[in-house]
């Protein structure tokens, strides 16, 4: 039954537009979220790769 419904579905041309609207809304919310993040958190996160000190290998510098 579900397959029959899908087979006769119409207006597939509009799917892209609907998806773009979904994406734009999602994108706007995402940008707002990032803008509202606390600066201290953002600074801490951006430094994460630099905070993984282990004992042996981190002192090695290229010549």
């Amino acid at each position, binding site marked *: 039954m579900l397959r029959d419904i899908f087979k006769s579905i119409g207006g597939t041309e509009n799917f892209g537009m609907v998806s*773009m609207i*979904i994406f734009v809304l999602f994108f706007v919310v995402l940008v707002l*979220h*990032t803008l*509202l993040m606390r600066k201290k*958190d953002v600074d801490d996160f951006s430094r*994460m*790769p630099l905070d993984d000190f282990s004992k042996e290998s981190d002192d090695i*510098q*290229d010549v």
Partner: protein
Amino acid sequence: MENQTFYYDNKIVKNFAYATLIWGVVGMVVGLLLALQFIWPALSFGIPYTTFGRIRPIHTNAVIFAFVGNGMFTGIYYSLQRLCKARMFSDLLSKINFWGWQLIIVLAAVTFAFGMTTGKEYAELEWPIDILVAVIWIVFGWNMIGTIIRRRVSHIYVAIWFYIATFVTIAVLHVTNSLAIPVGLFKSYPIYAGVQDALVQWWYGHNAVAFFLTTPFLGLMYYFLPKAANRPVYSYRLSIVHFWALIFLYIWAGPHHLLYSALPNWAQSLGVVFSVMLIAPSWGGMVNGLLTLRGAWDRVREDPVLKFMVVAVTAYGMSTFEGPMMSTKSVNAISHFTDWTIGHAHIGALGWNGFLTFAVLYYLIPRIFQTQLFSRKMANLHFWIGTLGIIFYAVPLYWGAITQASMWKEFTEAGFLKYPNFLETVTQLRPMYAARAIGGGLYIVGIVLGIYNLILTVKKGKFLPEEAAAAPALENTGNSRGSGEGIHRWLERRPVQFTIFALVAILIGGLIEIVPLYLVKTNIPTIASVKPYTPLELQGRDIYVREGCYTCHSQQVRPFRSETERYGEYAKAGEYVYDHPFQWGSKRNGPDLSREGVVNGRQYKPNSWHYNHMLNPKLLNEQTIMPSYKWLIADDLDLTTTARKIRVMQTLGVPYPQGYDKIANDELLIQATGIANDLKSQGIQVEPTKEIIAMIAYLQRLGKDVHAAGSPTASISGK
């Protein structure tokens, strides 16, 4: 909270690093052999195992899944442990991941050389190996998610988001595109046919680029670039937007590989629009990478790791501008089927993936061997030779592509094609092909230097298999959101939920494009005169797939006057409904073959021509670059598979009559005897049971059904 001491597993990192180097050389040497075959076709050596059609998948799979794949695992296994402040979840799963992946690569190389292929680009592996790939991939994901769950850091860093997206998306793509019904141990037919198969395949193909060659390397960029530059990421906010926008948009872009094809226009338009939009997140990532070097640009002059990274990120930026540009219809009309695509792909593979892989290796190998790089000068030399190699590789191909596309499209004043002989447009490119081979050769010389440098580094150092580290245990903050904690902040510490969100983001595009095409009947108008292949033609088609003919010949006439004049009627969706798999191809080193069988058509040749052409193409044209397929004349057709193939096709919905499998071989022999008798009348003695007869039967069928429909648009039915 009290510090816990734990140990990073460097052994698995070392194993993957070594595999990266070995497979890198193998994959690229095979690529060089392919490049040289364009100049000296005799380098096929007259045997099946080294012909272009069989070794091209070995090259592409070795570079993508063996070199880049192992490089990706090297970087992920190194960075994930350190970003999570935890050892990998399971050493056993790490080992299974490593050895399983190497087994897959060996099996791929062997099966491709023997012609065991699905005939779908970058997804050529047959079903048993596909299952093995799925199992090993799940092992990788299990190990990764397990490590993230056991981490000692609350926030999941953005690099890990890219790793998660890589895992879930590749799993979805691989399983969906590989669905097939086996005919035997190493032969299957995909469940999709024609246009649907093309869309699923390029949805997979494009997103294999996106989620195997791009997202994991963006993750590596977000970890190793700040480490090498000793600078925090330029903008963490931008990285969040970059991640979600990229994974949401990328998944839609596959149809740009099928512009001007028989794919419905709405799907083509979606592909174009989302491809152009992709510039924004892609360049956001590139800018974020390059600006991370702010204040450290003076070090780029001296440090080979940073040099490799800068060119890698720049190549990413170039590729991700060029890709959307090639996705617009006006540019695609020129670039598609030419070497432009090959040049574009290699800017990404050699520049972005290759250089970032070497940056990672130059960074981490000295560290896990507790020493310094043996020679910075040698690494710098590698960098410059490699960079020159990329330029020498790509520029001649761009030049050649514009030249060839112009020759394809040029008309005389009287309105005839100026270059009606396709071969003229190939021989014109020989100098460009020679320059491309020099570029590829230079790149390999650079890699050999790099490997030598790393071997000396390894010899100089002392391997540290268990690297001690310390961090406090992760505080249990509960499953629910804390006060003032936004949804995304909550997601950033919940790996399973994050994985589900990423899965939803990538599924939206895939489902909206593929489900309507698969289920809505009006998308594929049927053509009454299009009938299933006869048993002999079906066998011939399988030989066509086995020999990888699609790597040089398309079966897709675009609706341009220059193409309909050269080949005949343009392609329609309804003519491919029994094609499991589709064989449209993506590159024309030889002419399109989809109208080859139309008697009195522009491309038609008699049976004897095909026989002689397969026996020795140079007998018919001294300039041709097509290799000989003389074994088709010597080898017997495997008649034991015919009935099984018919039954599988029936299962897939191909309307052979009930019980047809039992009489299929009888019909096959009748048709084969007819072709053999025709050849005999031309002075060629060949038994009807030889493979060449089936191949000729298939080639002579191409385009006949559409031609029989007369005015094709009049006989197309959408209901």
